[in-house]
């Protein structure tokens, strides 16, 4: 029986390794465990095949849906974990650090880091560059009662992402910086 279990484990290892390779920033188990403490949890994992399927169900005639379709067309995966807590201090700085530490490799660049001592908000935006093109985006938003991790894997066009603002409830974002 143990031999059979070992055989199946060995058989599944490459598949697990491939899945892990798709999402190069792993969500640590300590972060996943925060769901038990949170009053509201959002867990979105949409990778390869599901993204393709989602793309098929977006209309080709509706211009708004066409934008999303184009945006997700080349993506490899979208991973979101968002935890909302009833009280402050429900997650530890170590939980945030376990995510940030994975983004210290040379391929990742911290583009924006906003920290507010008054509000206690800390938002970091990381980009992964590949041949002068954005190949991935990670947002870590650590707020007093909320921790959010967003990982978009694959080539992402920021203009397209900002053009989605106001559609499907997606907030309008001006990623080009403030107008003077």
């Amino acid at each position, binding site marked *: 029986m143990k031999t059979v279990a070992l055989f199946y484990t060995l058989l599944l290892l490459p598949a697990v390794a491939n899945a892990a390779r798709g999402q190069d920033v792993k969500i640590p188990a300590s972060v996943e465990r925060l769901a038990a403490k949170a009053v509201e949890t*959002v867990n979105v994992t949409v990778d390869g095949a*599901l993204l393709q399927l*989602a793309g098929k169900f977006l209309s080709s005639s509706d211009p708004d849906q066409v934008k*999303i379709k184009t945006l997700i067309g080349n993506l490899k995966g*979208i991973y979101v974990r968002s935890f909302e807590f009833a009280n402050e201090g429900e997650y530890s700085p170590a939980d945030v650090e376990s995510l940030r530490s994975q983004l210290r490799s040379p391929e990742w660049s911290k583009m924006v880091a906003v920290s507010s001592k008054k509000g206690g*908000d800390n*938002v970091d935006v990381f980009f992964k560059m590949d041949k002068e093109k954005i190949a991935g985006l990670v947002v870590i938003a650590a707020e007093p009662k909320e921790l959010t991790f967003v990982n*978009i894997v694959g080539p992402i066009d920021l203009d397209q992402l900002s053009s989605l603002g106001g559609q499907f409830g997606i907030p309008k974002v001006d990623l080009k910086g*403030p107008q003077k």
Partner: protein
Amino acid sequence: MTERIKNLHDELRNTLHREEPPAGFAERVLNRVAEQPVAGRSTPGPFGSGVTGRSEGLFIGGSKGRADAVARGEARFKLPFIQWAAAAALVAAVAGGFEYIAKQEQRAEGEAARERVVLALHIAGSKLQLVQTKINRLHEQPEKNSNQ
């Protein structure tokens, strides 16, 4: 007594004596058999003429029963077509049903995936907007200070 028996014997012999058929009787019988319609005589059944041919000599006069049997055979021969058509229709209906269910499941899965993508983009967008708002505030702050 013996006289009475002898008379009775003679009477029986006169009554039951062999009579020759009229001339041409055998030919007339054969001609009438030949004139009978084919369906009434010996139609080859679904198993070929061998089976019916074997019984030809037995049923010269009783061909109606055989005709009914042949008709039943023909009905038996036609029935499978109806059965096959019904079976094919049933298989097509079942296959169509399965395909419809599979399409519905795929549609539900696709719509759920679409909703998840939109939700993920909404969360990503809202957090980027938070960054944007904070950057805008930082830019507004020096302007206010310089105006004062």
